């Protein structure tokens, strides 16, 4: 039975509260619009749900997790003892034959921004105009000039620490002072210099100075378990409270969006969701709908929004909804150790995890066809003293020699993680599984995805370069991962609602507004044409800010009527 709430019509319904949804509700509420936000999970409580400086010996299994409990039937499920389980178990997916996909998801309020990697580089014209440069695919329907002011505003809003680097391929922004280099960074930078590879401060949304009422980082190194002081950007710390302060927000948690409702003209009039506690279907109504459920989930909701007007899913007259799935190939390109640091005192190397430095794309910059692959990748170097001395599992022997060996090697390990974008192809996409339904009776999304030849060439290339950097730095390279990580792992999927000027080939226009349904907007990485060599989060926020101001303007011009 469907429970409707006809008495209230909101100005905007926003699905999702992560980087995109959070920015959307904040922006729309501050503009005075009445917003209902649907969030598929619960609210987090930083007091209880984050690690909050608890040490492994305060945990039953020392943080290694209950050995009897397998890591869940959802591949990639991340379970820890560090806090209550916040990872999604009930909403699974299927993969088409030949496809693999690994996908830990957090549906709690704030989504993945609660635990994200914080790397926040701007896309540049080299990304937006990639097709013009190398002839593959099409350009984005906007330029760097158009987006740059929004990047600046987001950077000022959330606080990003980095340095000015004068590389148009990864444009500089407005930054707080950078994180300092560690010993291993100076050593590896020297090695990288010798073969002409940039080794620079990453752009990291983590505060080196107090900012907007939030204290600077205390460098505890547990960022991936959530921050108890809001010292790195997360939607749950920075956006949701601001939106709530306006009193214009109605946040519904445990609200699993199912489909978008349409009126007699096929325009969006609301959202049907399942209340996860009562399992009841509920409808909410609004004058506009923003989908920000993250790339694949947004596509699933839209594909599941079938009606007389939209037999193949809402706003899908182009047939492109769910298509063009891209992802970042992740993998350990090289690992080794720096003998210079053997036996040296420990150093707080992992204070920002591995996002203190990066090696931003250096390939195909002058000549887009210089390498054996097109486009390019970036690399995140890391290493040093980790919380757990992983060398203890490799070192031979036992006794005092072993104990000393582990201690001597503690500051020395180095590792390189590649971030390489897959190319758009017709064979990588998502659709609805015709048979399988999730816990709530909603069709499961089915993933069709394989790494393409181009991205695998980048992987091979990165292995050679990173090994060489370790050697040139005077280090010992001990190998690389045999295979890249399974697709999905980076959580940087893009493309399922790609933007473009031509309604025949794109789901949304350059403002993230669907071509077919003027009051339906998409605010996540699904609108991106590719995932580039950079991470997606800050771009999601910059694009969302731009989209929402366009939406607000449409209310002002009465293209959308206020509720």
């Amino acid at each position, binding site marked *: 039975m469907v429970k409707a709430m006809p008495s209230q019509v909101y100005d905007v319904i926003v699905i999702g509260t992560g980087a995109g949804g959070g920015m959307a509700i904040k922006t729309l509420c501050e503009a005075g619009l009445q917003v209902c936000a649907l969030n598929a999970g619960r609210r987090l409580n930083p007091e209880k749900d984050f690690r909050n400086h608890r040490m492994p010996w*305060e945990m039953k299994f020392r943080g290694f997790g209950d050995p009897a409990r397998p890591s869940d039937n959802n591949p990639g499920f991340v379970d820890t003892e560090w806090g209550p389980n916040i990872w999604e178990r009930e909403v699974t997916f299927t993969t088409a034959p030949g496809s693999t996909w690994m996908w830990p998801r957090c549906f709690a309020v704030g989504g993945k921004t609660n635990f994200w990697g914080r790397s926040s580089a701007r896309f540049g014209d080299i990304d937006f105009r990639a097709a013009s440069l190398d002839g593959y695919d099409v350009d984005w329907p906007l330029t760097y000039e158009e987006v740059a002011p929004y990047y600046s505003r987001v950077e000022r809003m959330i606080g990003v620490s980095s340095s000015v680097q004068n590389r148009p391929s990864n444009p500089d922004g407005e930054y707080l002072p950078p994180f300092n280099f560690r010993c291993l960074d100076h050593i590896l930078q020297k090695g990288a210099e010798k073969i002409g590879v940039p080794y620079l401060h990453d752009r990291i949304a983590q505060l080196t100075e107090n900012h907007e009422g939030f204290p600077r980082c205390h460098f505890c190194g547990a960022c991936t378990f959530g921050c*108890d002081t809001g010292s790195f950007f997360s939607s749950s*710390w920075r956006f949701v409270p601001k939106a709530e302060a306006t009193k214009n927000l109605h946040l519904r948690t445990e609200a699993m969006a199912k489909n978008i409702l349409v009126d007699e003209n096929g325009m969006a009039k609301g959202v049907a969701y399942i209340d996860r506690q009562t399992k009841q279907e509920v409808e909410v109504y609004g004058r506009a709908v923003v989908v920000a459920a993250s790339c694949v989930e947004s596509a699933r909701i839209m594909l599941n929004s079938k009606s007389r007007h939209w037999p193949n899913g809402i706003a899908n007259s182009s047939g492109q909804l769910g298509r063009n799935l891209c992802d970042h190939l992740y993998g350990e390109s090289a690992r080794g150790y720096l003998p210079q640091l053997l036996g040296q005192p420990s150093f707080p190397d992992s204070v920002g995890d591995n996002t203190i430095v990066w090696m931003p794309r250096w390939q195909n910059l002058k000549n887009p066809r210089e390498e054996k692959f097109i486009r390019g990748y970036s690399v995140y170097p890391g290493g040093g*003293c980790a919380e757990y001395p992983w060398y203890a599992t490799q070192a031979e022997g036992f*006794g005092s020699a072993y104990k000393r060996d582990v201690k001597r090697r503690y500051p020395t390990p180095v590792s390189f993680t590649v971030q390489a974008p897959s190319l758009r192809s017709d064979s990588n996409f998502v659709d609805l599984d015709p048979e399988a339904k999730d816990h709530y009776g909603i069709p499961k999304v089915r993933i069709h995805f394989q790494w393409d030849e181009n991205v695998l060439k980048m992987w091979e290339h990165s292995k050679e370069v990173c090994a060489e950097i370790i050697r040139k730095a005077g280090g010992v390279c001990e190998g690389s991962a045999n295979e890249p990580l399974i697709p999905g792992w980076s959580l940087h999927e893009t493309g399922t609602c790609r933007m473009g000027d031509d309604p025949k080939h794109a789901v949304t226009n350059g403002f993230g507004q669907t071509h077919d349904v003027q009051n339906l907007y998409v605010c996540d990485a699904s609108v991106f044409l590719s995932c580039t060599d950079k991470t997606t989060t800050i771009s999601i926020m910059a694009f969302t800010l731009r989209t929402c101001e366009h939406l607000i303007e449409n209310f002002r011009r009465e293209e959308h009527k206020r509720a």
Partner: protein
Amino acid sequence: MAGQDLQRREILRIMSMAAVASHFPGFAKWVFACAHEGSADGPTVKPAKYTPQFCTAQEYKLVERLAELIIPSDGTPGAREAGVAEFVDFMVAHEPERQYKFRTGMTWLNAHSERLLGHPFVELSEEQQASILEPLAYKAKHREGEEDGRAFFSTVKDLTAMGFYSSEIGYKELDNPALKFYQKSPECPHTDDPEHEHLPPPKW
């Protein structure tokens, strides 16, 4: 919330440890022993005696001995002080799939010791124990027919390392930087020597 200072957090953390200790009595020994140095009004949890949950009393002595041999007390505390045998027993007790191999591994080691040196492992001298373990632990000394022993030793060693380096004693052994907070972004102290070619001699 945002302004909540770390000191208060730290106090809450230490207070919560008393509760933790009472939930996992098997861990009380080192939770108590490690956590509250210099804390004048620390919690009053009494260290509980650990009762092995998987091993028999005799097997537990073997696990204790192996852990001590792997990470000895040699000037700095080792597996014994960190209560690592408790952790090993506890983890095996919670992983049914591992139990059969673990138990047969212990049996193998004792039978092997008796065959070569006439006594079960724990009754051997330290040198004799080392002579049994070395062929299991070092690739260059591997002997044919000892595959099961090597697999068992490797399991015990992994669990020992996990138990030791996740204890506060293990953190202190490495001077693990996660024991502290930092006022500002920690910076390499050798910026005048970027290649780190002129560092002071190794500390250990």
